[in-house]
Each structure stands twice: as C-alpha cells, then as structure tokens.
C-alpha cells in the first residue's frame, strides 16, 4: 500500500524504532526564540551538556521585542533580561542569532522560509505552537515545549509518538481571490472540524484550492493547523515551493539536485489512505470573522452572530462556552457582523504579516483614511518583509492613511510586549488566537484576513470586502 507524504518524512527520520516505544526522530532544523528557551539552556548547563548541532540551530528574538524605535532602550526590564539571556546563551553555545538589530530579525516562522532555512522533506521544531507554518513547504514542522527544546539542543532528536494522518481536501475555486483569502479558508476549516478536530494528527492539505495558493497563502493555512488541534500541517511541495526557496541566503549549494529528488519523493502516493478526511468546497465561501473566544467560533461576514443554542447543536459544554464567549466579547446573538464597531486594527503576526498580506491590505487603504474612532497598526513579520514593503512604497500608503508602521515582531498577537489592547477594546486582528486576554487583559479579538482588517480600519466596523473593488 502507498504512503502519505507525512509517513515518508517520518520514516526517513527514524533513528530508533521499537514496538510499543516512541520513535526517536532526527531533527533537521531547530529554531529558537527568547521565551521558551532560557530554561532549556539552563538545563544544559546544569548537566554539563553542549548543543549537539549548533550548525542546525538558529535563533531570533520576536515575542518580547518592542516594535517601536529600536535605537531607544527597552523600557520593560524583564523583556530586556530575556533578550539579553538569549544573546548570552547563543554566544555560550555557538548558535547563530539574528538579534534585534539584524536585517534578518523577525518572527521565527516568517524568517525561516525567507532565509531558505525551511526545506521540503525536513523535520523542523521550535518551542512555539505555530511552527506548523513551515509545513507549507512540505516540511514536518512541530511545535514543542521547553523540555523537548532542551532534548533537541542536547541530542538533535526527539522521542515522539507517531501521529495519525488527516486529509483536508480543499476543492473548487474562489470567485474573488482578493476578497476571499487563505485566512478565510483555514478559518472555515477550523469552524467545521472544531478546535480539537485535528488532535493527534498531522493534516495534509490537498486539492485544487490549495495548489492554487501562493507560498505566502499556504503558510497562512499551515500556520493555523494548531488551532484545529493538529500536531502539524503539511502541503506537498511543487514548483511554486521550489521557486520560492531558490537563491535565498541559506539555500543549500546543491539545491537543484535536492529539488530533483524532492520532485520525485515528496508526495502522497495515489493509493495511500488517511486515518481521517474532511472536504471543504470553496466555490462559495465568504470572508470569515470570529465572534467568540476560540477560532472555531467563527461565521461568515454576512451572517448574524449565532445564538448559543444554534452554535452548540445540543452540546451543553459548547453552549456554556458560547454564552461565556458572548459575555466576554460583549456581543448579542443576532447582531450582524457588519454592525460590529471596532477600536483597534492589528495587521501582523506569523499568520498574516508577509509581503503579500501587506500588498493586499494596502489596496484597500490606498487614498483612504483610518476611521477617526480607530487606531490601526501594521507590523511586518520580519525586517526583510518591512524592507521589501518599503521598497514598494507600501509604508507610505499605510502611513498616509494614519496606520502606524512598525518594526518586526510578534507584537499584538500575544500580549507579552508593549503592544496590547486595553480592557474592553475591540480589535480586528489578522493573528491566530482570539482567546480571552490573548491580546491583553480584557481585550476582545476578532480574527480576520488582512483585507478584512484593512477595510474595518477605514470604515470603523466590519464590511464585506466582496463589495469592494479590489483588482
């Protein structure tokens, strides 16, 4: 019987395999950031261990960094200490670091692909759940905890239970590819499979709806696999993938011969079977807006907010969850999404802060002004994205419209740097999590695509971007 792409990558990385034991899996690339690594390095020191493969380990700082003027000292002492700690750890253990002043600094999941560090068929780990992003290149990319970070630093391997396989087939063609985006596809998938729908599985996204997407868009899809509960998300590499990675700063010297073998090897066999399947038809899908406090609580932009009964389908816990979410979000069932007014707009994060995201959002902004009741910011995913956008003049479009144009980092996605919502503030956000307090204590998050966020900034409330001329 044939094998899935996941099974092929897994099997080619097994170091030790025994019945009823976890498999010991070799790790090709380890990405490190300032938040989940300090205790791991402390553990190495305590046990007098070295980093096994510093040459396969790459670090940057993204979670804590301020996104304002970097020539100024950092005001938050604890963040400053955590950043200094990463600098010292990288120096002590001989690890390449893209620090706060590096032109390659950025969100770890944005810089990996941009630098050609993310490669098809490889295993990639990082102490961050959104590591699944790298799966867009046909890499098996897993988010791990700090104990596992330490284990990989020490051994370049991990003991892992083999996940199950989950085929998510995206069929059809979007009618308006500017208005209905990759973000809307992945939010639709999570709305349907639920936040635990992918638990214990690696999702492979397949079908015409996926192969039509650009690499930036595919990364948005794989990025949010974790919000559907999956261990990872994968897309088989194709010519778009190979073109993207050609001639990057760290692209391997023997790249073309690698491409030749990837072309043959890195695909799911036609007779392979998956443990689970879900099919989404995207011919008629609408822009999505989350209304609740997890990414599964999402509806179409032209729908009203569902009642807890409608949402829960008779499941008492789901009903309670929806009631609590509506209370937290200060929303009532039946309210039309387009009638929801917003206070803040955040275009950024590892989900939607790549060049294409900024280009698409800028088309809506051009020649317009942010609504007087809204404050809006754009935080490019990396310094490289920022530079490319500035070369295209996108910064001017955003600044002229009264958006703030910031330095690269995780920013307002996760409320651990100065970019946070105040209690009660409502934000149209291109990030990945709308959990209670995620963007700051008491903050209210609506997950949307970059074009939906941009249109909300201009209008002061959500609008159906299908009504706008986006070409």
């Amino acid at each position, binding site marked *: 019987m044939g094998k899935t792409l996941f099974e092929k990558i897994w099997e080619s990385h097994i170091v030790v395999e025994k019945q009823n034991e976890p498999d010991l899996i070799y790790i090709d690339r380890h990405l490190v950031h300032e938040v989940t690594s300090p205790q791991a390095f402390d553990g190495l020191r305590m046990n007098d261990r070295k980093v096994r493969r510093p040459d396969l380990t790459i670090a940057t700082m993204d979670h804590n960094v301020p996104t304002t003027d970097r020539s100024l000292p950092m005001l938050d002492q604890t963040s400053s200490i955590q950043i200094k700690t990463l600098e010292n750890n990288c120096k002590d253990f001989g690890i390449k670091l893209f620090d706060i002043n590096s032109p390659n600094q950025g969100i770890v999941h944005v810089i990996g692909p941009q630098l050609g560090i993310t490669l098809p068929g490889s295993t990639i780990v990082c102490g961050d759940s959104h590591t699944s992003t790298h799966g867009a290149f046909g890499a098996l990319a897993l988010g791990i905890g700090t104990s596992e970070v330490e*284990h990989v630093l020490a051994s370049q391997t991990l003991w892992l239970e083999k996940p199950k396989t989950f085929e998510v087939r995206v069929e059809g063609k979007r009618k308006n590819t500017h208005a209905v985006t990759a973000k809307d596809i992945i939010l639709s998938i999570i709305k349907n499979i639920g936040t635990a729908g992918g638990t214990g599985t690696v999702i492979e996204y397949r079908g015409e709806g996926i192969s039509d997407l650009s690499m930036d868009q595919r990364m948005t899809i794989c990025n949010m696999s974790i919000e559907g509960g999956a*261990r990872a998300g994968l897309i088989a590499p194709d010519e778009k993938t190979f073109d993207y990675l050609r001639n990057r700063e760290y692209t391997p010297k023997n790249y073309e011969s690698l491409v030749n073998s990837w072309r043959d090897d890195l695909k799911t066999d036609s007779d392979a079977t998956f443990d689970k399947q879900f099919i989404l038809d995207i011919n008629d899908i609408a822009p999505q807006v989350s209304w609740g406090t997890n990414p599964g609580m999402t509806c179409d932009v032209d729908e009203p907010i569902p009642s807890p009964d409608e949402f829960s389908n008779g499941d008492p*816990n789901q009903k309670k*969850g929806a009631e609590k979410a509506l209370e937290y979000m200060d929303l009532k069932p039946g309210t039309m999404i387009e009638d929801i007014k917003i206070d803040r707009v955040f275009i950024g994060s590892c989900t939607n802060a790549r060049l294409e995201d900024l280009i698409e959002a800028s088309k809506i902004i051009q020649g317009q002004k942010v609504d007087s009741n809204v404050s809006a910011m754009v935080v490019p995913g990396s310094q490289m994205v920022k530079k490319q956008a500035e070369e295209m003049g996108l910064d001017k479009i955003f600044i002229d419209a009264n958006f703030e144009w910031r330095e690269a980092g995780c920013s307002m996605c*996760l409320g651990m740097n100065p970019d*946070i919502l105040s209690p009660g503030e409502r934000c149209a956000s291109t990030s990945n999590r709308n959990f*209670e307090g995620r963007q700051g204590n008491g903050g209210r998050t609506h997950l949307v695509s970059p074009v939906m966020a941009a249109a909300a900034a201009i209008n002061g409330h959500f609008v159906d971007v299908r009504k706008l001329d986006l070409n």
Partner: protein
Amino acid sequence: MRGNIIKYPRDNIDTDVIIPGQYLKVHDYAELATHAMEGLDPDFHSKVKEGDFILSGKNFGCGSSREHAPIALSHCGVKAILALSFARIFYRNSVDGAFLLPIEIDQDAYDGISEGDEINIDVSKNEIKNITKNQTYKMKPFSEIIGKIIAAGGLFKYKPDQD
C-alpha cells in the same frame, strides 16, 4: 493519589488563560504559580491546595506551546488534570517535565464528579474513586509510551527498554 477537585465545566481551556502571555518572562516558578489561571478564575488561588486536581471538559490546554502552563499549575500544588481530552503539546509538556498527570476521563466521571469532591486516583488500576460520593469511574489508560515516560520521571530520565 488523593485530593480534592476544582471543576471548570467547559471545553477549550487554553494556555493563555492558564498563564497569560505577560508572565512568560517570569523565570521564578513560585512567582509564576501566583498567576496560574489568572485569565479564567481570579479566585483560583484562594481555592487551590497542595494535592488538588482540576477537572475540565474537552481540549484542555489548547493553544501555545508554553511549558509555563503545566509548570504554573504544578507549582500551585495541582497534581493532576482530569479532562475529557487534552491538546497534545500541553499533554506532552505535563509528562515531559513530570509536572503533573494529564488524565483522560469519560463522560460519566466528568458528570459524576463535582467541585470539592475528594477523589483517589489509582493509575495502576486505571481507576478513579469518588470518596465523597462513593462512586468509581474508569480513567483512560496512558498509552504504553506515555506510561513509560511518566514511570521514568520525565523525558530526560526516559530510556527505551534494552533488548
């Protein structure tokens, strides 16, 4: 293992409410513990005692890979989470660092056990006894793999069986 239940009867308790992002810079575990569950239940610290268990619904610990989540709970004295299901990274983090036991339960245990109930967990028999109500439920056994990591006392102490 014997202790009392703190029950959160809802699904999808995420790592951002277990330990909000602003505290991921805190390296002192005792201090981290003072912020556990801050995003969900401001009264958690007045309730929690050494040896307590948390009972909750589906997909417990979803979200971020932050190991700070099981660390903060374990340093409050929480010895186990009983839930209908767990998000995988939280589950592995709990076991890898030997912070607490993630125990999957069935609906009858979820419905039968109330806030404050005293229960006894016998992992060797895969059994949960509700002492307060004199009821017994099955827990889902750990997979062989996870059981071995738990028995070893965490990921760094685990060694595969020798032939």
